């Protein structure tokens, strides 16, 4: 148990007042908690903190309390392995990670090796955000479960929505020049070609990852191409600067993004975000939902005012973990892994199923855009995310086939 996390836990869970509760199931959260990528990791960490807090309040996993510990990996694959080893060493059998496909790949690899080399001591990896399709296709693993839709599925949602918009005839693809960005572009080309041949791809551009400070030249290329919409998998600063440059140059066409909802994009763009910034996600706060869900959203915002309720899948993942433990009747990682396969839980925004063949969660996806006059705003602005017309993509429609050949123990 680490001090930082201890202090955090004590404050969050209020354990300090009640003495240390007996912790029987240890869960390790390995993601950046400091440094430049700290915010994205901390945003998810706080979601898990709240989710496990609720789980513990409702009887834990088969009556056992769950203890969540944060490990700071500084988004380095190597450092993640050190932290993974520390986590396993301190008794963690469930590993949560999401930031960066390179880190996820390293963890999958390390978990596979660990489980092979240390039978009886297995650990399970719960991936909440690393969306490279390979993890549930050719590189799939029994020990890995993904709760976020992967890049091809998200693209499926985007293209499904896009083909219903008859005013969009020309599409421009722009992405970061690395595995993930290339995968996004490939998926877009393939899916658009299959779904609607009349949509023309007028540009397919990769820019260096995290190095471009002024996207204006790219925006000018987009303008020159006469595109009606832009599809991008950009995240972080590349996301924000891209749409910012578009706003400056007066390019008012839809930007269909994977991570438009990430921290800071809406506030940076200001009113220019309305009607230009779109995102695809597994749920947004302004969807119709139960009162319990609204209460959760409000509780989250109250506890962590710096962040917005964004990582809905964190709560889904914890729900599934609980359901699997009950189904298995045990908290043993192997038993839970087996129980997770094919498991369905009723989420706030529709059912979530963990597909047995590749351990990829199947759930509804929603295309949303920025609007004013919404119930829940983001980034402490007056704007928030709102479902667009035809924006709900059913799980079945977003589903993608898998090439996974699962090897089970």
């Amino acid at each position, binding site marked *: 148990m680490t001090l930082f996390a201890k202090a955090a836990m004590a404050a969050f869970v209020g354990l300090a007042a009640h003495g240390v509760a007996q912790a029987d199931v240890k869960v390790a959260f390995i993601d950046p908690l400091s440094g430049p990528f700290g915010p994205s990791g901390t945003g998810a960490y706080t979601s898990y903190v709240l989710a496990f807090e609720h789980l513990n309040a409702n009887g834990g996993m088969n009556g056992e309390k769950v203890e969540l510990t944060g490990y700071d990996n500084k988004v380095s694959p190597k450092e993640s392995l050190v932290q993974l080893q520390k986590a396993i060493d301190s008794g963690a059998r469930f590993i949560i990670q999401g930031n960066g496909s390179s880190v996820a790949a390293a963890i999958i690899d390390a978990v596979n090796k660990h489980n092979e080399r240390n039978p009886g001591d297995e650990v399970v990896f719960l991936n909440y955000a690393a969306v490279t399709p390979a993890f549930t296709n050719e590189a799939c693993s029994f020990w890995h479960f993904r709760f976020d839709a992967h890049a091809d599925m998200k693209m499926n949602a985007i293209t499904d929505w896009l083909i219903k918009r008859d005013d969009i005839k020309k599409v421009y693809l722009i992405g970061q020049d690395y595995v993930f960005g290339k995968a996004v572009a490939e998926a877009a080309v393939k899916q658009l070609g299959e779904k609607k041949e009349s949509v023309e791809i007028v540009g397919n551009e990769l820019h260096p990852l995290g190095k471009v*400070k*002024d996207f*204006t*030249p790219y925006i000018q*290329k987009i*303008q020159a191409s006469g595109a009606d919409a832009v599809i991008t998998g950009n995240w972080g600063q590349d996301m924000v600067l891209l749409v910012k440059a578009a706003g400056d140059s*007066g390019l008012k066409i839809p930007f269909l993004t994977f991570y438009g909802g990430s921290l800071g994009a809406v506030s*940076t763009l200001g009113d220019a975000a309305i009607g230009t910034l779109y995102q695809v996600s597994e749920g947004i706060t302004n969807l119709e939902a139960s009162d319990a869900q609204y209460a959760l959203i409000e509780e989250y915002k109250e506890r962590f005012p*710096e962040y917005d309720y964004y990582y809905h899948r964190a709560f889904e993942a914890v729900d599934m973990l609980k359901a699997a433990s009950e189904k298995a009747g045990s908290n043993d990682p192997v038993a839970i892994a087996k129980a997770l396969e094919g498991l369905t839980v009723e989420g706030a925004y529709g059912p979530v199923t963990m597909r047995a063949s590749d351990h990829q969660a199947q759930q509804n996806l929603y295309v949303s855009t920025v609007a004013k006059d919404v119930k829940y705003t983001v980034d402490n602005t007056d704007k928030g995310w709102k479902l667009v017309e035809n924006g709900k993509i059913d799980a079945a429609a977003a589903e993608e086939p898998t090439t996974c050949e699962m090897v089970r123990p």
Partner: protein
Amino acid sequence: METIVFSLLNGMIYGLLLFMLSSGLTLIFSMMGILNFAHASFYMLGAYFAYTIMGVTNFWLALFLAPVLAGGVGMLVERWGLRRVHVNGHVAELLFTFGLAYLIDEVVRIIWGRNAVNYKVPEALDFTLFTLYGSNYPAYRIFILFVAVFMLVSLWYLLKRTRIGLIIQAALTHPHMVGHLGHNVPLVFMSVFGAGCALAGLAGVIGGNYFITDPAMAVQMGPIVFVVVVVGGLGSLEGAFLAAMLIGILQTSAVSINASFSDIFGFLGLTASSELGRITVAQLAPTLPFLLLVLVLIARPRGLMGEREV
């Protein structure tokens, strides 16, 4: 055609920003021999100071006050830090600024948070100035141009027409001479360091809302500033100007070239299916400055217009 016009225009603005940032470092590096690793941190401080001042008062006050504050911090750093390590040589000074960059990054995170702050272009300048080939041209970019040119002219006047300018010029080319002229060398150094940092701060004030103001902005800008200074040449503001414009335009134009290696070197038998052949000029854009840096240092160590070798 429009690509060329836009590339030149945007490249020029980027180049001017780079110059504003690197002119200070050229002064510091040439006179004091300190390759200030934290120089871009003062750029960041300028942006954050401006953000805070703008929140309380307005942009125009920030434009004036933020560079002054950044310069003040710079002077304190020189007085209480650099001067102390000076006896241990240039490597120690360089390492000191290296650590300082870390420190400023973290302090900025504590004070202003880990996320980007909402430092906006002032409303008075937030409009479209003209439309060119169907693309809006924001007035703020032209404002950057004006500020940069104004700074350029003032700097030129200061260096060529004033007494202190003459001293600085003498020191640029003959750093050992200043002491013999009977001037208070520590004071001159402190002022130059402060002025350099103030220039970086000014670049931050007008660059922070043009790009983005977040704790990573220093790290991203840092290495490129070195490139400008070294490529431009030691002791030469003209060289720094030339290098900044060159890099600004080079990087901006390279982005708009879609040609791949196989297109360019096809005659050598390079095919588009090979990994090397698929690389495009646009992809190479961010590596160009560093390629330039290495080539210049090897082939022409004094840089484009430098008086001395690095």
